[in-house]
């Protein structure tokens, strides 16, 4: 995989060298002209973006893409999806093959600068966690000293694991298995005490056990993986639209506005902040260069963040809100004021 890394490194350097400053507003104009938003999505990650048995794209990231289409074009169905692998995703955005990456990409400093991306928010806070068999009686990562751990090689997961155990002065015995599916099966068969990967992955893998209740995901999270949408450098207007689309979904949840009650709220609400968001009081849409009902369209057609989360991440992966709850519920989701 070293050569692959070199190639990717080269590509990133070339991308940075070639990335030209787009004219502000370019992307929005081209989206309006072609009549759809082209989103880069994961090739298959259940809960985030994956085709269903019917071949339709579904997931939290897919719905963010639909919300962007609802905000700009007033119709959430005007989207097209380009499935991208991890290696392809940045080139695809740079070469304008896609308008926006809604592909569970971790926000890091080098990607935000050298790679030429603008991360405009975090729509899912992930982090590396542990899963153990229930009968082991372990209820915290502190109790894992000397454990055998099933991991996949060459990932940041492996490095994070080593860092964590070293910092705690504990030891572990790695069992390295090439593919995630096999690693999980090996763990279920009892070959290892612990399986580790991102928390969202742990939750979904746990569901595949013949009896999921035999296994528990420990509450400890040992790394930060803020996943969010990214756009190209240099188009501030489009970056703003994607950022505020995400914020509008959060704000709607905070104010208790859902796709079901948005019509009634728009008609009756006396709350000035809701009136501003839904366009009863004009000005916000104009500031973004959109129509005044941009946020109304997002909420009416896609729903608020909580609805989207429950429909995708919770229903399909059985993952509770945790860090992704609103700040009012002890989570990290804190929408900036729409005014």
């Amino acid at each position, binding site marked *: 995989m070293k050569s692959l890394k070199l190639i990717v490194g080269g590509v990133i350097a070339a991308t940075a060298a070639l990335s030209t400053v787009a004219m502000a507003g370019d992307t929005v104009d081209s989206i309006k002209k072609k009549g759809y938003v082209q989103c880069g999505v994961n090739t298959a990650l259940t809960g985030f973006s994956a085709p269903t048995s019917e*071949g339709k794209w579904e997931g939290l990231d897919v719905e963010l893409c639909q919300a962007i289409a609802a905000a700009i074009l007033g119709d959430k169905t005007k989207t097209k999806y380009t499935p991208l692998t991890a290696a392809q995703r940045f080139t695809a955005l740079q070469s304008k093959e896609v308008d926006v990456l809604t592909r569970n990409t971790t926000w890091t400093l080098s990607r935000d600068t050298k790679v030429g991306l603008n991360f405009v928010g975090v729509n899912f806070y992930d982090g590396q966690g542990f899963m153990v068999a229930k009968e082991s009686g372990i209820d915290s990562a502190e109790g894992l000293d000397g454990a055998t751990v099933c991991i996949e090689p060459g990932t940041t997961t492996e490095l994070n694991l080593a860092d964590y155990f070293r910092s705690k002065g504990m030891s572990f015995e790695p069992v390295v298995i090439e593919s995630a599916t096999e690693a999980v099966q090996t763990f279920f068969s009892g070959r290892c005490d612990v399986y580790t990967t991102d928390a969202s992955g742990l939750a979904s893998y746990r569901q595949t056990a013949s009896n999921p209740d035999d296994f528990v995901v420990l509450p400890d999270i040992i790394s930060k993986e803020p996943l969010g949408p990214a756009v190209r450098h240099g188009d501030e207007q489009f970056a703003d639209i994607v950022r505020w689309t995400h914020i509008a979904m959060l704000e709607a949840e905070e104010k208790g506005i859902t796709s079901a009650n948005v019509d009634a709220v728009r008609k009756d609400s006396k709350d000035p902040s809701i009136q501003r968001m839904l366009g009863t009081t004009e000005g916000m849409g104009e500031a973004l260069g959109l129509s005044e009902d941009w946020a109304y369209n997002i909420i009416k057609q896609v729903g608020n963040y909580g609805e989207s989360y429950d429909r995708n991440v919770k229903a399909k992966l059985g993952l509770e809100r945790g860090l992704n709850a609103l700040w009012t519920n002890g989570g990290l989701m804190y929408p900036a004021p729409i005014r």
Partner: protein
Amino acid sequence: MNNVTMKPPGQSGALYWIRENLFSSKLNTVISAICIYLLVKFTIAVVDWGILNAVFAADSTACKAASGACWGIISEKYQLIVFGTYPRDEQWRPLVAMVWFVGLIGCSLHRSFWKLWLIPLWTGSLIGLGVLMWGGVLGLSYVENTQWGGLPLTLLLAVVGTVAAFPLGILLALGRQSELPLIRIWCVAFIELVRGVPLISVLFMASVMFPLFLPEGVTIDKLLRAQVGIILFTAAYLAEVFRGGLQALPKGQYEAASAMGLTYWQTMRVVIMPQALRIVIPPTVNSFISTFKDTSLVLIIGLFDLLATAKVAITDPSWRAFYVEAYIFVAAIYFVFCYSMASYANNLETDLRKGEQH
């Protein structure tokens, strides 16, 4: 039936064959017994797992409870695996396209069809298939090619890859033998360069590096880039196959042709190529089989070929535990195609050898 061989009584029939071939000595008897035991044991286990204890309904809870295979994943996901993300209501289109495509290939492989009108037939068919797959005319809704996937995509990449690489391969092979040094150097350089790198890096270049060199605002379709990559790769290999055919011909054939005053192109068209191509049919089919299987590498650039759609199908948490069944399903499809091609090559070889036996 003139050459019937008569055998002494008691030396024919199934029992005789078994005695003679399986139990002719003590050691043979022991080995045969062990093999038969293992075979029976294996068959029972497979039948047990694959049929008797298997679940065929698309019900993942029933699957988890069962001890056998879960073919329910196929009942649930076969449309996704075979057709990818092509809109479900329109899936008859890739189905018709596939049948047409396979029929066309079947015809083209039969000797009685090796006529010049095969070229317009192919051109017409490719246009027809394009209309069917893309739509947008004749009342068919438009389906862009990012939604294509599964078996049609695999067939498309492999067949178009080989068919387009065929003339290119011939030209490269001729160029490599050319007496004009510049042409020869170019052809040798191309062939050796492409053969010197794995297909996966060609695809990677086509999908990740190439777009960076295009002018601002120009994007070339991902499928097209991969297809061109496969064509160039296959052409380099076919060129070497054809060179083998050219070198197998006795020098006298070239000399006789020039003695008759034929020009270079006439020589190639009427004397050399018909003979050379006949010799290389088996390795060409072989190269086609390997191209067919190599197309599964496009999953690294996010195209949903048959193998990639199977991988997508097993990311669904309720079905993830049954990946073995999904892979068996895909392997069976690959086997049907590859085995038919291999048998065809064998038949053709026997067929062509008849001419040499006089």
